[in-house]
C-alpha cells in the first residue's frame, strides 16, 4: 500500500510545484497549500504505515502497544495549522496587492523594482 501512497504524495507534490511556478499569485497560494498537504503526507509516510491503530495507550495499560508512530503525527499536527495560517496570510496579501495594483500577475506587481537598486553607489557607504 505504501507504493500507492508514495505515488500520490509525490504526484501531489508535483502538482503543487507546477502551480507555485505560475505567475498568477492566487494559483501560487493554492499551489503552496497543496505543497504543504503533500509534504505533510510525505512526513507521515516517512513514519511508516504499519498499523491502523491510533497511538493511544489502552485503558489498564501503562505503555503504548502496537500502533502508528506518534512522533511524525505530533510534527504534522502543528504543521497543518501553521500551513493554514500561512495560506490565509498570503491570501490577505494577495487581496491587498490586488487593491493596490489592480492585478494578480506577479510580473505586474513591481513597485519595488521601479524604486531602483538599493545598493547603487552614491549613498553614504560604510565599510
Amino acid at each position, binding site marked *: 500500500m505504501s507504493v500507492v501512497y508514495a505515488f500520490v504524495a509525490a504526484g501531489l507534490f508535483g502538482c503543487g*510545484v507546477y502551480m507555485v511556478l505560475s*505567475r498568477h499569485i492566487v494559483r501560487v497560494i493554492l499551489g503552496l497549500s497543496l505543497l504543504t498537504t503533500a509534504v505533510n503526507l510525505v512526513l*507521515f509516510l516517512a513514519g511508516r504505515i504499519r498499523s491502523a491503530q491510533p497511538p493511544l495507550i489502552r485503558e489498564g495499560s501503562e505503555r503504548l502497544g502496537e500502533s502508528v508512530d506518534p512522533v511524525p503525527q505530533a510534527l504534522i499536527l502543528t504543521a497543518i495549522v501553521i500551513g493554514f495560517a500561512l495560506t490565509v496570510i498570503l491570501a*490577505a496579501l494577495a487581496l491587498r496587492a490586488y487593491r493596490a495594483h489592480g492585478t494578480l500577475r506577479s510580473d505586474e506587481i513591481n513597485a519595488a523594482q521601479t524604486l531602483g537598486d538599493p545598493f547603487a553607489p552614491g549613498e553614504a557607504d560604510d565599510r
Partner: protein
Amino acid sequence: MGHRSAGWLLALLPAGLFAGFLRFTPAIEAGRTVTERFAWAPSLGVNVALRLDGFALLFCLLITGIGALVVIYAGAYFTEYSASERARFHALILFFMTAMLGAVLADDLIVLFLFWEATSVISFLLIGFDGASPSARRSALMSLRVTAGGGLALLAAILGLGVTLGSYSMTEVIARAPELARSPWAVPIVAGLLVGAFTKSAQFPFHFWLPNAMQAPTPASAYLHSATMVKLGIYLLARFETVIAGVPLGRDTLISVAMATMLVGAYQALRAENYKSVLAYSTVASLGILVMLVGLDGPMASVATVGFLLAHALYKATLFFCAGTVLHATGLSKLRLMGGLGRFLPVTALASLLASLSMAGLPPFLGFISKEFLFEAQIQSSWNAIPVAIAVLVNAVLVGVAGVVTLRPFFMGRDRVREVKHREVLGLLVGPMTLALLGLLISLQPDWISRAVLRPAVASIYGQPVDVTVALWHGVSPLILLSAAVVGVGALIFVYWRPIHRRLRTESPLDHYEAEHAYDALLRGIEAAARRTAGYVRRNDLRGQQWIIMASAGAFVLWGLLAAGVIPRARFGLSGVRFGPAVVSIVGLAGGVAAARARSLLAAMVATGLAGLVVALTFMMNGAPDLALTQFAVESLVVVLLTAALLTLPIAAPPTRAPRARRLDAMLATGLSVVIFVALIDVSAAPQRTEISAFFGARSYVEAFGRNVVNVILVDFRGFDTLGETTVIALSAVIAWSLLGPRMPREARFLADSRTGPFILVMATPLFYWLLLALSLVVLLRGHNEIGGGFVGGLTAALAFAIVALAHGVGIAREKLRLHPLMLAGGGLLIATASGVPGLVVYGDFLRHVWFEADVLGVHIKQGTTLLFDLGVYLAVLGTVLAFLFGLTREAER
C-alpha cells in the same frame, strides 16, 4: 546630584572590586588558587569555572584599578556631551570591564571565548561611540571584523582542544600540553590560538586596526589600549606558552611575528603626526615586545613579561590620559601644532613627564627595571642576537617617542598655543597622577608588590616559582650597557625627530604593502563576489526565482541520494494494496492534477480542497485520527476564508505562462515528483528507528499521565516547541488584522450585515453553532487521553462561528463573540505561557507540568497544568481564525 559627580560615584564600583581583589592577595601569595564553579551546560561539558591565580590577579587589579580611574576621568572629560551620551559611555566602560574580568577569570575555555568576544563587541561600540562620524564607524567595524574574526579562529582552536583532549578546562589543557603536542591536530589548534591572540593584540599583519581605533573617545583609548583589550591576546599567549612551544616552530613564529610588529610599530610611530597615533603605534611596538617575551624561553622571560605588562599599563594609560586632556583643552590633534601647554596644564605636564621617563626606561622608574628584565631575558634565552638588536632599536624609538609626546606639546614651542578651552580639573588629574606616581613608587618600594602580585603572577605562567628581585641597581653588567645604548640612540632620535619624521613621511614604496590595503581589497572582493552571486541567483521575476529555488532543492535531494549510493530498496508488489483506500487516494491525486490544470480559480480551490480532504481520509484510515480531524477542520475553514477573499477577485484566471514555459514547468514538477517518489520508496523499505517513539510510548502515561501520546508530546514533552508554534499562529492573527481593511464604524457594520443566507442554513445555524461549540470543548477537555486537543478544539470552535457568519453575516458572528479576536489570541498565548509558571515555581523548570489530585464531593479529580496549556492553544487558534475570518470578510465588503 550634578553630572560632574557621576564619574566619582560610578568609580565606586570598580574601586570596590579593586579592594575586593586586593583581599585575595594573601591567599595568592601563599601559592593558592581560588576557584568557583557552577554547572551551565553539563551535557556539553561546559561549566562556568572561574579561577583566580597570580597572573589573573595581576590582570584583575589592572582592570579594576585603571577602570576606576578611567571612570573618574571620563566624568570630567565629557563636558561637551549630553547626559545620555555620558551615561552610555559609562555603561559601556563598565560592561567592558565586566567582560575583561570574565575573560581573565574564566577557566572554562568556552566561557573564556564568550567573554573574549564580548570585549570585541563592546570595544566596537566604544570605538564607534561617535556614531555620526563615518570614520569612527569605519574604524569600529574594522576592529570588530579583525578581532571578532580572529575570535572565530580562537573558537575553532578551543573546540579542537575540547575534541582532542576531551576537556574545556584551561588548567587541564595546559597540564596536558605534551599529550596535545603528539596529536595530529596540534598545529591547526596552535595556529587558531595564535590568530586569535595576534588579532586581539594587534600583531603584524593584523596591527592596523589599533591605530584606526584611536577614533574612540580618549578615555576609552586609555582603557582599551593600555591595560585591557589588547593585553588579552598577551594573556592568552602567556597562558598557552607551553602548548605553543610544544609544536615545531611555535616559539619561532611568536618571535618572528613579534619582531615584525615591533619594527612596523616603531617605523609608523616615527611617521605619525597625531598625538594619539604616535601613542597608538608605540603601543603596537610594545605589544610586539610583549609577544617576543612570551616567545622567549627561560624563567627570566616570564619575569620580564609580567614586569613589562605592569610598567606599560601604568605609563601608557597615563600618556593617553594626558593626550586626552590636551585634546580636550585645545581641540588640536596634530603634535606639530602644539607647544607650551605646560603653562596651562602644569599637573598634566608633570604626569606626562613622569610617565615618559618610565617609558624611556630611565632610572629610577619602573620602566627602567622592566627594560633590564627584557634584556636579561633575551640574553638568557637560547636565541641569537637578532632579537637583541631589534629590541635595542625599537626601545630607542620608544625613548624618542617618550620625549616627543611630553617635551613637544608641554615644554617646547611656547608661542604655538596662546589659550586653551578647558583647564585641568581634579577629575582629569587623579588618573594620570596616580598611575605616574605608581610607576615611580613601585620601583622605589618594590617589596610588597613583588611579593604579593608579581612573584605569584610569574609563578602561574612559568609553572613554578621564580625568584623575582626588583632592584634598581644590578651593578655594571652587559644590561646596563644595553640600556645606555638605548638611551643614547633614543636621545639622538629625539633631537633629530623633525628631519627623520619629514624624511619618513614622504611617499614610501612600502606603503603599497600596508596590511590595511589588503583589508580594503578583501572587503571589496567580498562585496564584488556577493554581487556576482546575486546576479546569478536573483531574477526579477517570481517564476524565475521559484525555478531556481525548486530546481536547486531537487538537485540537492538527488545529489544526496546519489552521494549516499542509494539504489532504491523497493519492496514492490501490489499484494498489500487495498482496493478502497487506493481508489480514494487516486481521487485525491486527480484533485491535485485538476487544480493544476484549472482555468478558474474557484475550480482550482475546490480541487485543492478535494486533495486535502483525501489526505485527511488517508490519515483517518492509517491510525492518525488527530491529524484527520485537524485536516478536515482546516480544509473547511480554508474554503470559507478563501471564498470570502476570492469574492472580490476576478474568478477567471487566464494562463500567465506561455505554452513552452508551462511544458518546462511541468517537466521540473515531474522531475521533482520522481525524486520524491524514489526517496519515499527507499525510505519505506529501510529499517525504521523507533527509539524516540518507544521512549514517548513508554513515558507518556507513567510520567505525563496522558494516554494520547500525540497530545502528550505536544503539550508536555515538546511543550516549548508548541508554545513557539502557538506564538507564530497568534502573530499571524496580528499580521492579518493589520493587513486587512480599516475598521468600520459600528452603524455601517450592521447595515453591511443585513444579508442572510439560504433559509435552511439559517434555520439550522443555532443547532450547528451550539453543537460545534460543545464538541470543541469536549475535544479540548479529553484531548490528553483521547482523540483531540487544543489545536483541533480551536479549529472546531472557529467553524461554529464560521457557520454563523455564513448564515447571518459576519457582524452577527462578531456580536456572538463579544471579544476582540486579537484579545482572544493574545489571551490564549498568555494562558499557555502562564501554564508553565507553576512548573517553574515548583520544580524550577518552565513548562514542566504540575499535577494535583483531590477528592471533591466524593469524585476523584486528577488534573494538570496541561489542560491550561491546551486551553491557551485552543483560544489562540480560535482567536487567530476569527481574526482571519472577520478581517477577510471586512476587506471583501469594502
